[in-house]
């Protein structure tokens, strides 16, 4: 009698595992059917910096989003600018840096390249920054800000 009981328990475990295996496959195939294949599109810009220069003094307008609300900041572009960037985007992100003609042909572009290297210093792998420098015609500033806000 005991042996029959032992044998019976063994088959129960086998059937149990067999059904579990079948169940896993059913779930997997069902999930694959339900998953829709979205196409890949470029990511949005996490922040916007607009560099303009008045009387050879470069100034930046920073636009960021924090806790659902928009932050707007006007700062000069100087040696402290990379600290301002870190404070505005503490978690890093993709930053679109638009430069006007006076900015691109003045000293600001060198400052911005220095800021870009500074933000890439290792040790902050948890907050990576990636900047893209783009030319900007002065007439297009409002359009650029509108496009950035459309993605929020």
């Amino acid at each position, binding site marked *: 009698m005991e042996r029959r009981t032992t044998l019976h328990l063994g088959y129960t475990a086998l059937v149990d595992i067999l059904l579990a295996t079948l169940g896993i496959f059913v779930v997997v195939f069902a999930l694959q059917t339900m998953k829709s294949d979205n196409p890949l*599109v470029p990511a949005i810009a996490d922040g916007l910096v607009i560099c303009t220069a008045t009387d050879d003094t470069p100034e930046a307008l920073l636009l960021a989003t924090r806790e659902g609300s928009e932050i707007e900041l006007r700062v000069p572009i100087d040696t402290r600018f990379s600290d301002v960037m870190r404070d505005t985007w503490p978690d890093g992100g993709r930053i679109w840096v638009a430069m006007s003609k006076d900015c691109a042909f003045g000293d600001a572009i060198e400052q911005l390249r220095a800021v870009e290297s500074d933000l890439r210093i290792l040790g902050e792998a948890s907050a990576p920054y990636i900047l893209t420098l783009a030319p900007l015609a002065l007439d297009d500033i409002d359009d650029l800000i509108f496009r950035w806000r459309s993605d929020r």
Partner: protein
Amino acid sequence: MSLRTDAEAGFVDIAANALSVLILVTIIVLIVSIVPSPRGEVRADNRPALPFPVEIDPSVQPFNSYWYVTEAGLTPIPLRQIAQSVFNGEKVIETVFGKFFFQNSRRTYRDVAEFRLGFVPDSKRIAEAAISISGEDEIERAVDQFSMEFEESYIVPTFFVEKSGFDIFARIHSAMRNADLPLRWVVRRPGVTLTIMRDANQFETRAATWR
């Protein structure tokens, strides 16, 4: 009788364990085989209004076309013609677009894949030879050409931008970014000599960037 029972019990145990291993392996394979989306791209239904550029792998770098941007439009820099002049033995090449000369020091190894070529542009004559880019149709045609060159030959345009051509270039840049085309650009200040360079690093290494 007991041996047979033990054998059957053992077989059942082995089969049960084998199936449990199969379940575990299936779960692990499913997790590991999830295709990660490339950096800079996300799975979404709609393209954003301001798409962040998806940068290409820098290893395609060496194959570029060079363009000069003035208020008159785009002028291609004829590197093939310059290469032919160098092949014919010239070290300083005078063209209608300006002067080209080698900047390598005497001890630097120099060949088709390693050189530094200085370029002093003649802005006035470059503007005279420019392809006019004033309307949206012309910009679209230019972008179509760059797109074809990139798709067929991985050629990435590099733009030298003069102050007078900055506004035109801003529109070209915007159109190329909207078409997800890679490009490089650099401003050219008056009196500055431009340098076109090639070195082994560009062919052999990849820049470590977070992209």
